[in-house]
């Protein structure tokens, strides 16, 4: 039987390579209470064995249940009649089976019906499911709102909302975006007010809400009248009851299985999550780490699917008396796709582990504080890891979503004319890919988010450590390249900072982020190449390619390619 976990040795490579020992020991409370649940692990090896077996279930579900329905989900799409949203038939079946398989509360605590898994393992499941049907990830991935309720809500809110998310009875949505507040969430207007007894109500409109028809909604709303920025916003949880009207669903290019709703809140009773005024600046920023990773997983899954289609087609299709995969130009494109895919996976799982460590340390520091124990060491580690996560999650989202578009684009190219036709899967994959570098923050915003860490060179010490290390054989040349890329990066950084020109810096940020990202991924791949001989090929093409791109980026900055921004009005003439 087909299985999207077992047929993918590269996921297994990262499964075996990731060290979650500390993360799992913390979440399992030192395995002290493993007898309370028959499915709780007794030690780390048992936990990893559990995760592997559950990923096999995910792989079975993805390959044999979800993937065969993906074409019909795309054709049927979600629909709306009389204000009621219906999923495509295939989506409904998929969700029922995900519930039967206990996969809708993967990171949530066992006491609320969840599996209490590390985030990294949940991300592996998300990648596998996205490969089968990208649009299903949007609903599957919203189990994550449960984590926000769990982290910042009260015990009563957890008891009220989490068990039904875990069982699959309820799905969730994050209602953040409004017609005038897209990338700029500080402009959110939806009004939250209290009655004389202090009960909260919501009034206003939200737009582009993925799965807005959900039973549980997390809503960002303006609770402080008269404010205009993010500090007047609070986070609320409410039921998608009769006071929440779905005005329309969008007719989209791709991810047809996922209903994108416009919502009107008509004095909807709601509960405050956490503290007032912290809605955007704390809770939404926190959920963004995981939401960015969710979209990255979606991009990675789509990329994997597109690569598989392209490779299969290229090996079957014969032209000029041979399989087109044997034509050097095609073969070269396939290698580029594969290298990009594996490099992306390395970046993705390194970021996922970083998010796991950040959440573990947050919880640990919180616990030590409440127990009035010293926490200085843990806190300084938390600061370091938060800096890394602040850089790595937007870098990952940017890199993987852009690659996903490139890989699906090339997958159609390899199919030639047939790839442009609806009958082939690559056409859907390219449409599904297109949203990944737009939502949960566009690529341009991810670059802005990552650039702070890049300009402050937060991984400087890490890179210096890597430069002192000795690599053997062919890797020596590659480590030399990486040293040169770092030199080019530092030189470019000095140039950009020295100009003291914000507009120039904003535009140059992309090149700086590209340089920094390729350094980080380059060292990840070098480490992998030391463990696995096949990975030398991946590291080699990646780093040699990165070297060439780095020279281009450095040259673009030094020669001030963007110097003409001042003349934008003269250059950008519209048709008369």
């Amino acid at each position, binding site marked *: 039987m087909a299985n999207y976990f077992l047929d993918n040795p590269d996921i297994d490579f990262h499964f075996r390579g990731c060290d979650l020992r500390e993360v799992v020991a913390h979440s399992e409370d030192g395995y002290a209470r493993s007898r309370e649940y028959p499915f709780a692990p007794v030690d780390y090896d048992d936990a990893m064995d*559990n995760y592997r077996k559950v990923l096999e279930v995910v792989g079975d579900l993805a390959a044999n249940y979800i993937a065969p329905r993906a074409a019909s989900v795309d054709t049927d799409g979600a629909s709306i009649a009389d204000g009621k949203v219906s999923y495509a038939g295939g989506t409904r079946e998929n969700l029922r089976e995900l519930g039967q398989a206990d996969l809708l509360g993967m990171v949530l605590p066992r006491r609320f019906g969840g599996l209490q898994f590390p985030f990294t393992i949940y991300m592996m499941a998300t990648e596998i499911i996205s490969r089968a049907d990208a649009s299903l990830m949007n609903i599957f991935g919203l189990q994550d709102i449960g984590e926000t309720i769990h982290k910042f809500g009260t015990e009563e809110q957890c008891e009220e909302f989490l068990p039904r998310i875990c069982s699959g009875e309820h799905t969730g949505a994050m209602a953040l975006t409004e017609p005038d507040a897209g990338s700029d969430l500080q402009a959110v207007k939806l009004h939250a007010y209290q009655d004389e007894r202090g009960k909260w109500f919501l009034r206003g409109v939200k737009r582009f809400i993925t799965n807005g028809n959900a039973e549980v909604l997390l809503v960002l709303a303006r609770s402080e009248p008269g404010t205009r920025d993010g500090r007047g916003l609070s986070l609320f949880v409410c039921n998608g009851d009769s006071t929440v009207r779905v005005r329309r669903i969008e007719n989209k290019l791709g991810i047809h299985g996922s209903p994108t709703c416009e919502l009107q809140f008509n004095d909807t009773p709601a509960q405050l999550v956490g503290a007032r005024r912290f809605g955007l600046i704390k809770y939404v920023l926190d959920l963004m780490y995981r939401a960015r990773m969710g979209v990255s997983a979606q991009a990675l899954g789509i990329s994997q699917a597109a690569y598989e289609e392209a490779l299969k087609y290229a090996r079957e299709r014969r032209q000029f008396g041979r399989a087109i995969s044997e034509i050097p130009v095609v073969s070269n494109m396939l290698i580029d796709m594969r290298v990009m895919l594996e490099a992306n996976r390395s970046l993705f799982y390194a970021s996922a582990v970083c998010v796991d460590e950040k959440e573990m340390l947050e919880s640990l520091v919180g616990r030590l504080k409440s127990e009035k124990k010293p926490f200085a060491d843990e806190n300084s580690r938390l600061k370091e890891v938060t800096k890394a996560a602040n850089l790595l999650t937007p870098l990952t989202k940017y890199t993987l979503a852009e690659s996903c578009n490139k890989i699906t684009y090339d997958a159609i190219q390899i199919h030639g004319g047939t790839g442009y036709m609806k009958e082939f899967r690559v056409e859907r994959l390219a449409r599904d890919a297109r949203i990944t570098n737009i939502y949960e923050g566009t690529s341009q915003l991810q670059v802005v988010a990552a650039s702070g860490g890049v300009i402050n060179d937060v991984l400087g010490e890490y890179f210096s450590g890597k430069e002192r290390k000795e690599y053997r054989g062919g890797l020596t040349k590659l480590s030399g390249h990486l040293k040169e890329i770092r030199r080019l990066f530092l030189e470019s950084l000095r140039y950009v900072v020295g100009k003291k020109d914000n507009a120039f810096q904003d535009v140059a940020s992309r090149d700086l982020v590209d340089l920094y990202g390729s350094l980080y991924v380059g060292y990840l791949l070098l480490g992998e190449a030391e463990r696995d001989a096949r990975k030398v090929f991946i590291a080699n093409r990646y780093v040699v390619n990165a070297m060439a791109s780095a020279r281009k980026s450095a040259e673009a900055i030094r020669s001030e390619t963007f110097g003409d921004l001042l003349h934008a009005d003269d250059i950008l003439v519209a048709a008369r």
Partner: protein
Amino acid sequence: MYTSIVLVKQVPDTSNISGQVMKEDGTVNRSKLPAVFNFEDRVALELALQIRDRFGGTITAVTMGPPRASDVLRECLYMGADSAYLITDRKFAGADTLATSYVLCEAIKRIGIYDFVFAGRQAIDGDTAQVGPQTAEKLDIPQVTYTEAILDVRDRTARVRRKIEGGYEILETTLPVLLTVLKDAAIPRPFSAKRVMAFKGAKSLLELEKMVEGNSLLYIDKLVHEYRGRSLFIPTLTADDLEIDVGRCGIRGSPTKVHKVESVVLAGSSPAKIENTTAGISSMIDSLLADKILG
């Protein structure tokens, strides 16, 4: 509340037959093939689970097979079966449908009272579709073969839709009843993650005995007690446990003899081009009728 017994079988995975798997005489080298849960038996278990979802009750999965057949029993537990029995003995080896149904019948009687016995229509390794019906005969209960759907269960009767040539028929039967199930009757549910983690360590008596072998610190009785206490023991029944006539079991009890296996290699001859016209298509239909491929 209804009590169901589901008969399941571990079979070679014939979906990926490669060159190494076929022996020269045309038979299958089973040791080269991975073993899997016979698909129609998974569907049978799904129907039993749906009965339990609707009306409550319990489900026991039963397999007769070698020790490694415990794998499918664990998978039954992952899907939702309440308990599982392994029927195993060297004396059962080489059984045909007659001997198999005899042993299964005796095992079912030993396991206890039941309302439903479910089985897949057939196993993909033998394709006989006889074990279910013969077991029903030996149990002396009604049977419905080729089940497509269970429409309703009320008190002691069930309404069942079965496939027949060119259509279906709806039958009403008293309980207990044995149903053999078609692959399209239901989509078997995926394994439950929680049950996989909870039951991955479930072991049959033979597997526990293996653990004891070569480990002088372990005692089989203690181990069985411990596993039973944690609901991880897969009860195992042998010929002695069942107190049955060993002359009717295994190869001794099997009158079926394989006379000859013919290896048929299907090869295409010259391709035929069919014109996309009414005349072209009707001439194709005529030739298919003449070759007895249609009709």
